[in-house]
């Protein structure tokens, strides 16, 4: 696990691993995989809460569990910045990771593909490929989104590309 900070590393190892290699087109095997996804997400969310590092909410947006929506947030200079989070489970999952999208930041940063898909580091895809099918949604959030927010939100705030919601209200009032 070269190229990862020790914090990410130690958190990652505590998220339960998954065992079923199945994608959304695999019928009953996908249901089994979904159960494992839920268990990993529940464990990861609980872990974040007990470490006082709660930073996302995610839930399935359809009964098939192929589309997920929620929120994620990051605290910078004691202010909380919150964003919508969404992604689809690709047909080739888990061979390929879900492409995490922050639609509100589309066009605001270079570290993003069109449609608000976050641009992952060179370390993400190799690690995901190596650990297929043991990594799931929770691992993608931990390895993909958390480091992205930590790197990009401070830049977006400092460069004025995004404003804190209280700032925005005061500026419109004045």
């Amino acid at each position, binding site marked *: 696990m070269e190229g990862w900070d020790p914090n990410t590393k130690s958190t990652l190892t505590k998220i339960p*691993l998954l*065992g079923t290699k199945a994608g959304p087109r695999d019928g009953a095997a996908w249901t089994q995989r979904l159960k494992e996804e*839920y*268990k990993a997400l529940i464990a990861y*969310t609980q872990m974040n809460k007990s470490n006082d590092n709660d930073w996302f909410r995610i839930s399935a947006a359809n009964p098939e569990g*192929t589309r997920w929506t929620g929120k994620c947030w990051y605290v910078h200079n004691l202010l909380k910045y919150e964003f919508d989070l969404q992604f689809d489970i690709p*047909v080739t999952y888990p061979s390929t990771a879900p492409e995490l999208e922050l639609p509100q930041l589309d066009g605001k940063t270079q570290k993003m593909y*069109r449609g608000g898909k976050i641009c992952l580091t060179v370390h993400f895809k190799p690690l995901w490929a190596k650990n297929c099918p043991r990594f799931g949604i929770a691992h993608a959030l931990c390895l993909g989104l958390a480091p992205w927010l930590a790197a990009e939100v401070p830049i977006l705030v400092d460069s004025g590309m995004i404003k804190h919601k209280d700032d925005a209200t005061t500026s419109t009032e004045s």
Partner: protein
Amino acid sequence: MEVELKQLMADLQSLNQSLPDPSLHASLLKIQSRVEHLASLAKSEPVRRSKVKDMSAEVVDSNPYSRLMALQRMGIVENYERIREFSVAIVGIGGVGSVAAEMLTRCGIGRLLLYDYDKVELANMNRLFFRPDQVGMTKTDAAVQTLSDINPDVLLESYTLNITTVEGFETFMSSLKNKSFCTSKQGSGVDLVLSCVDNYEARMAVNQACNELSQTWLESGVSEDAVSGHIQLLIPGETACFACAPPLVVASGVDERTLKREGVCAASLPTTMGVVAGLLVQNTLKFLLGFGQVSPYLGYNSLKDFFPTMQMKPNPQCSNFACLERQKEYILAKPARDAAVKAKLEAEAPSTEEGPLHIDNEWNISVVDDCELDVSSAKSSDILPEGLTHELPVADDFRNIPTSEAPTTDNEDLEELRRQLEAINSK
């Protein structure tokens, strides 16, 4: 012309203002309105060529196919006009796919199926094909607009969708299966799929569809640093599929660690993309019209003008189930293949004196059968030719992982787990 008319209008305007005699104003206004009328005519009526029923070899400047039909006269291609029977699906209408679509359109391909979910934006203007006035249109609509102008003989189908989603993938599959264009065709409804996408996820989706449909496809790609690219032929069961081994990429020679990636996702050049599109369509034409040899894998390192090649056999341990099915079928069909090769050789033997004959689709049969015997010619995934490298590592063999690691309780209810997550989420 537009500029000239505008200039003329401006001149008339200033003449009108400087004229001391008001009696001349009326006739000047008349001239002005006629120029205005001309300007609107020039705008609204671009020249459109009409459809052509049969491809003619006649060399006249009004024949759009004369130079292509000359390939047949020169003996390069046996029957060029067959191109009108072929359907090609292009997935990804970006810097490579749009140019490939234009090339095939100009070549008079029968039918093109175009897939993309993106819109044209100004940031695309460093690449070929799209124009600034198309900004905001979907890439598929903009492509149809331009391509139908260039050659109205081509049947164009556009699909604005993302093939990696469950819904998009289903539409993708059913569009490939539709045989209405050429009902006598065997297999799927298209002759070749060209993958011109820019990411691993979409390539894996194309691979999945083509493995399931036993559909031959050509993969293409340009590196994120814009200085290298590749094309690859994939025949399910016969050659390695995209999941058989980690994707191969051309080493640019630039050290990954010194490559400055901060601040940007990807660079792009019209040159590299144009070269790759050219290589892709050249091999498409060779495949469809049965001339020359189709490259199993051809890399392009633009910094050194180096073109590494190689070929890969399928991996019997491939993680893709459909790939393993195709591999089984390919092995079962070996006696029939051998018999066909033998019959072909016998049929061709006496006729060789009659003149230069084309060994139709030779690559399809002999090259691969050679490598079935000559193991050393087909590189294993560990030994790569100079200048090529794997983009991703191989997955650890998860079947060897002790079962205690994998969750074993499957009698839990999915709804219950969903409720549990919602309960934690709402706390």
